[in-house]
């Protein structure tokens, strides 16, 4: 009986440890940034690389920020001669893979700026995923002139 209790306890502790080890660790955000926008602009963009370290596909289901009225995920896409912004209900990140948000492509649209946001500061954003994970991230506000340089930077990593 004593042994049985011990086994149960060990089992619980192990499960708990596995649980905590996984929490917040299956998704890793890299290079989260936002280009500084003119002070009069009411919208801004957020870019980042979302890595899914787990064995299962994960969906980003929502994002919010205290500095904006709301946050949406959009895809900039050339369609019938126009650049269209197509709202994404969620964003899939494949198992053991990543999804990149970058200029001229997938991006986070930060809508309805509530406070001034300047280069050198950060924009806090809460990301929610369909596996129950919730991440608090910060977008670094930068004055980068050319996003191409950002990509260029990447090759050296």
């Amino acid at each position, binding site marked *: 009986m004593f042994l049985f209790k011990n086994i149960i306890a060990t089992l619980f502790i192990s499960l708990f440890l596995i649980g905590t080890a996984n929490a917040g660790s299956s998704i890793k955000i890299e290079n989260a940034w936002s280009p500084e926008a003119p002070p009069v602009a009411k919208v801004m963009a957020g870019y980042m690389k979302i890595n899914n370290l787990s064995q299962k596909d994960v969906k980003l289901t929502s994002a919010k920020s205290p500095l904006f009225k709301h946050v949406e995920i959009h895809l900039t896409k050339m369609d019938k001669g126009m*650049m269209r912004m197509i709202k994404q209900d969620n964003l899939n990140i494949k198992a053991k893979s990543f999804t990149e948000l970058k*200029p001229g492509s997938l991006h986070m649209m930060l809508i309805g700026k509530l406070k001034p946001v300047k280069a050198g500061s950060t924009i806090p954003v809460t990301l929610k995923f369909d596996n129950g994970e919730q991440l608090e991230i910060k977008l670094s506000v930068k004055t980068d002139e050319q996003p191409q340089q950002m990509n260029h930077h990447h090759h050296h990593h």
Partner: protein
Amino acid sequence: MSAKNIVTFVIIGAISLSLGLWLSQTMRINNNDTQIPKNLDATVLPKARPLLGFNLIDHSNQEFTPVQLKGHWSFLFFGFTNCPDVCPTTLKAMQAIWKTLPTKQGEPGHPKLFFISVDPDRDKTKMLKQYVQYFNPEFIGVTGKLDELDKLTRQIGILYGYDEKDGSNDQEYIVNHSAQVILVDPKGRMRAVISPPHISKVMAANFQTIRIFYGDE
């Protein structure tokens, strides 16, 4: 067809080809206007297209008509200020181009940039001015009535449209628009179309090639 005929054909063909090449070279020297510089990442129109008959307003509430496109090279970019991705990315590329220009404001060959808002309901001139001047104090914001905007966009082939404008929130809708940058010559004629992605180094080099090829007159 006999062997003799084939030889005649080849000879005539060779003569025509040389004549054509010689003519094109001569014309190139005499009249650059109908020629196209090589090795460009831009679509140069074989025949420059005059832009006519539009009456818009710039960010200082001054007239913006075909007259304002004369006497200097102009870049035209169409967008809106509630645009998070394409417009700031393009304006930042233009900002980078301006830093590499060999000329200063007022000097021959120095271009102007007109950011033309196709969202006049939200983009009022005062805020448009603050928006474009953030990128460069030389940049000029332009907007106007929709029918006047259409007069310009239709000549160029720029398209735009609204999504969710009839929705519950009349301040939050999306404007879809063509993202080409249009290069206009000092005679106010559309000369080249530059398609995204807009890479400042390439654009800056292309602009100087086109500018030198056609001249600043």
